[in-house]
């Protein structure tokens, strides 16, 4: 069977679903942030696959911006994590409930 775009899309969908399960079910904040990175990479693979299908470079340029954005988001998220860990000594995401009623 020839390798079509659909093959790459299915791989990207699988990575997206694994990342979603990680975000929704893990208690460790660092692993949740890493699952978000998995989701972003799934989107990147989707974009690059479509960029090849439509013979343009827009998808690849978009994916470069997504990588830059993921770097900024990881830095800020980890900064928040460090600030939170300094106060509460735990990385359990269930303990992030200071704004609950």
């Amino acid at each position, binding site marked *: 069977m*020839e390798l079509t775009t659909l093959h790459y899309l299915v791989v990207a969908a699988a990575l997206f679903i694994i990342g979603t399960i990680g975000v929704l079910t*893990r208690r*460790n904040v660092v*692993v949740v942030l890493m699952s978000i*990175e998995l989701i972003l990479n799934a989107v*990147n693979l989707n974009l690059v696959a479509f960029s*090849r*299908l439509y013979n343009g470079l827009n998808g*690849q340029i978009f994916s470069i911006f997504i990588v830059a954005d993921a*770097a900024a988001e990881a830095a800020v998220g980890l900064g928040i994590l460090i600030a939170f860990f300094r106060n509460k000594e735990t990385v359990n995401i269930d303990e992030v409930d200071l704004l609950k009623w």
Partner: protein
Amino acid sequence: MTLLATAVTFVFALEPAAQAMTPVATHFFFYLLSAVAIISAVFVITRRSAVHSALALIVSLLALAGLYLMLYAPFVAAVQIVVYAGGIMVLFLFVIMLVNLELAAKEAQFNKQWIAGVLAAVCLAALFAVVYYKGAALFPGTPLTLAETDNTQRIGIGLYQTYVLPFEIASLLLLVAIVGAVVMAKKKI
């Protein structure tokens, strides 16, 4: 120093002229890289130790870089390796080492709503399956073969001409992120 210059000139003189190379063993590499990416992703979300998760994520990112190379996107593959695997994941590992996760590794790893989370993900998978099944005609058989010789040059031209505004905004975004992360992680502001 001249030895280095001679070696570099030798290597560049040996480069083949701008011609497309035929792909080799495409199916094998695609399935191998996809399997490595997906299995490493499963390791990311199931490992008890955060360092193991980070290393598995690095493996997954490298497999994805290989998939980008198969999709005729060498610059994106290089950016993925250098920035994502070499920058962001190193940042993750620094923070994992900074934060003491030994106690967290002994607690329960999955929260109480894990059934609802997996159910939501299964519904999402069903949605993907329906969309890809119904829309399979939109993705025609063999994609075109992109030129792989001037990919970086064309991306550079695109970034500086068509997409110069998002480029500048991305630089501002990185500045804001740096300032924000430093302010948040400081002990005294």
